[in-house]
């Protein structure tokens, strides 16, 4: 029996990027903070480009702790939603075109969010990655870490719990 020919790489990339773009681009607050997502396969890295309006302590200067928290929370929700929707995106059950039109599926809701500040946020770009430690039918646990210049010197870390949308 002949094996099925693999999908052309540009088709795969286009589908995944369109789905991610729709997921992120539909949220005004993500746009307001200027957060972008880079994708390598299914791995996401969030990027927060520095802007003057993100400053929380003008004397140091340092990023606002609330901005850091919001950046971590956004990274957590998008990464969790992304892993939750991945199979439907890949199977074609979820059409990127309907997503782009703003018809987003229901997303997880934050139950609680705990952030530890490890270093003051410098006035430059920040990065974050999340790891879904458990994704159940009703609840999910997610860990998030943010850093700036050095990946092994995190500026903040967070643990969050989410209520999963009903299928």
């Amino acid at each position, binding site marked *: 029996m002949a094996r099925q020919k693999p999908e052309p790489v540009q088709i795969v990339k286009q589908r995944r990027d369109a789905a991610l773009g729709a997921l992120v681009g*539909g949220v*005004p*607050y993500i746009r307001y903070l200027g957060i972008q997502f880079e994708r390598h396969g299914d791995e996401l890295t969030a990027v927060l480009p520095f802007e003057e309006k993100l400053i929380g302590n003008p004397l140091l200067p*340092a990023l*606002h702790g*609330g901005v850091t*928290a*919001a950046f971590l*929370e956004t990274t957590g929700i998008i990464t969790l939603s992304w892993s939750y929707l991945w199979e439907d995106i890949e199977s074609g059950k979820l059409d990127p075109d309907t997503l782009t039109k703003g018809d987003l599926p229901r997303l997880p809701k934050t139950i609680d969010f705990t952030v530890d*500040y490890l270093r003051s946020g410098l006035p430059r770009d920040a990065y974050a990655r999340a790891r879904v430690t458990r994704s159940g039918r009703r609840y999910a646990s997610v860990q998030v870490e943010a850093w700036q210049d050095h990946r092994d010197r995190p500026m903040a870390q967070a643990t969050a719990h989410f209520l999963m949308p009903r299928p």
Partner: protein
Amino acid sequence: MTADKALIAKQFIEMIPHAKALSMQITNIGDGLAEITMPYDEALIGDPKTGVIHGGAVSTLMDTCSGAAVMSHPDSPAGTATINLRIDYMRAAKPGDAITAQAECYHITRNVAFIRAKAFDADFDNPVATAAGAFTVEGK
């Protein structure tokens, strides 16, 4: 003395670029208590289908308000920074409503200030979110 401290804290908070960007207004401050209001803004929407504000914006408001409460405490010399903050989200804030945070610095040592905070929309009987955290005590 305490009135001066409240004034300094108010001026400092109002100088913060990100607090300004979110149009935060201090409505009450002094003796370890602070209240800050943030108007509804479409740029802060987290769920485009319902218009509900993003949790991150509520976190930012509570973090700012908690910092203000620490700075206004009689035993706090000057500045502060967040060490840790835990936020529990009770319900979605009503779209269109301003969000008000109330924070209390209920204990302070030479190095650490402990806070509790709540956030409300127009319904002050049912908080949107609650928070607890630890802040640094700077400048001693």
